[in-house]
């Protein structure tokens, strides 16, 4: 009997040690070449985010801490950024315009900042105006705390929804077992604030004792992609899993997306940290990737430039160095395709005001996808 128990234990250990992961059933295919690409801005290192000004010129964030304005091929470095904490995955991150930018001139950006309590840094959201290649009227709208010297998971994406609310993401800051499930702590959350930083009165956790009231959903690991669904107005995100278990989620108020209690991923080392992929009260992802693609950036196509791609979701892959195009049917992913394969680590993707898709690729620049005739 004793023998039997020890054999059982041995078997159990073997099973948990080399955890079985279920690979995504839908695989990314090579595309039929029906598009061309053109590098429209070259000479960039890590174009974390970019956006288009009303004159169709571009503002691009370099992670190392530079904001670059590109007009008619000419680059200007914008002065007046706040102090940026460049360490590990932290630096100057995303950038976005106010939906009424033409009227009010506000631009919004996220960055790692050492301001505030404790050694190290954490994610901050600021708004400012751009006047003569210089940032003015800077206002710090949110600063996650406390600071930490850990190098990971700053999140960073900024998106406005149709009601003018500003959504942004902050990752778990490498503190998996503390931040994501605790509403009194920053990190591992999606946040929602007004355009001036005020906290909406109907945010889901405003009545919870000690909660971070800017939080909108929780249980996230590191969301580095976020976009508004042009059809429904909903906020979509993608996030990095550890080894396997990257996810696409549609964000709903007050919901728990499960990290690290449920996950389709395992530790980098191959050991497990959880045995379950589902639990009551926790949201299932719309899609998960095993193996991980290391997703960054997100867009949903709605222009008429790419008739075959309408409604498709685009996600950058840092790991496999392509742009992934996902086709959905009835809210489920039915097809995955590799676009721009082999150009480099895809960090960001956006549909421009001209309807074309623009892609930020590390050590390449900004690449425009042109449909072939």
């Amino acid at each position, binding site marked *: 009997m004793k023998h039997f128990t020890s054999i059982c234990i041995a078997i159990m250990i073997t099973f948990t040690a080399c955890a079985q992961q279920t690979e995504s059933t839908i695989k990314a295919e090579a595309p039929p070449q029906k598009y061309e690409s053109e590098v429209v801005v070259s000479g960039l*290192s*890590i174009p974390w985010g970019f956006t288009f000004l009303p004159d169709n010129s571009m503002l691009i964030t370099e*992670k*190392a801490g530079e904001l670059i304005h590109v007009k008619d091929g000419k680059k200007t470095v914008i002065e007046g950024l706040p102090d940026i*904490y*460049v*360490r*590990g995955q*932290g630096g100057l991150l995303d950038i976005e315009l106010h939906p009424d930018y033409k009227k009010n001139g506000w631009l919004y950006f996220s960055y790692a900042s050492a301001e505030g309590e404790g050694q190290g840094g954490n994610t901050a959201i600021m708004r400012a105006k751009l006047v003569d290649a210089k940032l003015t009227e800077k206002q710090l709208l949110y600063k996650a705390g406390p600071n930490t010297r*850990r*190098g*990971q998971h700053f999140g960073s994406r900024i998106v406005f929804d149709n009601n003018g609310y500003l959504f942004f993401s902050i990752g778990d800051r*490498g503190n998996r077992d503390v931040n994501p499930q605790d509403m009194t702590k920053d990190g591992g959350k999606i946040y929602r604030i007004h355009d001036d930083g005020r906290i909406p009165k109907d945010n889901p956790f405003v009545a919870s004792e000690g909660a971070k009231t800017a939080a909108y959903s929780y249980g996230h690991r590191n969301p580095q992609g976020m976009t508004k669904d042009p059809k429904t107005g909903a906020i979509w995100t993608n996030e990095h899993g550890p080894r396997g278990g990257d996810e696409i989620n549609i964000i709903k108020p007050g919901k728990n997306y499960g990290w690290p209690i449920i996950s389709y991923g395992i530790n*980098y*080392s*191959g050991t497990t940290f959880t045995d379950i992929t589902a639990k009551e009260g926790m949201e299932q992802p719309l899609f998960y990737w095993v193996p991980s693609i*290391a997703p960054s950036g997100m867009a949903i196509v709605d222009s008429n430039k790419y008739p075959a791609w309408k409604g498709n979701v685009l996600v950058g892959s840092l*790991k496999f*160095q392509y742009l992934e195009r996902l086709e959905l049917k009835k809210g489920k992913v039915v097809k995955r395709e590799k676009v721009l394969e082999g150009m480099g680590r895809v960090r960001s993707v956006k549909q421009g005001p001209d309807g074309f898709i623009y892609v930020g690729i*590390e*050590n390449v620049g900004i690449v425009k996808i042109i449909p072939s005739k």
Partner: protein
Amino acid sequence: MKYRLFYVLCICSGLITQAQKEVEKKSSFAKSIEEGQFIYEDFCMNCHLTNGEGVAKTFPPLAKSDYLMNKRELSIKAIKFGQKGEIVVNGVKYNNVMAPLGLTDQEIADVMNYITTSWGNINKKMVTKAEVSAIEQ
């Protein structure tokens, strides 16, 4: 007689301090390696992977890397200031970019001590903070 005892005592205490110094040196090396492991998991593992094996043609290996083993100064430089352009690691060409990671000189020494003593790599001479500080771009 008295003198002889004194003499022996002197030698003994000398030996003891010498031994203590050895132990201290060893333990500060061991401590640095331990710290370095945390830095590695935090800042390097997502590219160079758990066992320093790297990713073919994209991220060079650190495990049994001839570059790391033979080019100590250039390796420290790469971690301190970033590394860009063509390098050859174990006979394979890489032409990629490692952005600067924002580590302190002490953290760079620690992570160097970890990666040069892990996964079959051997290094007997501890990397110190002073050694890292002295290396300029």
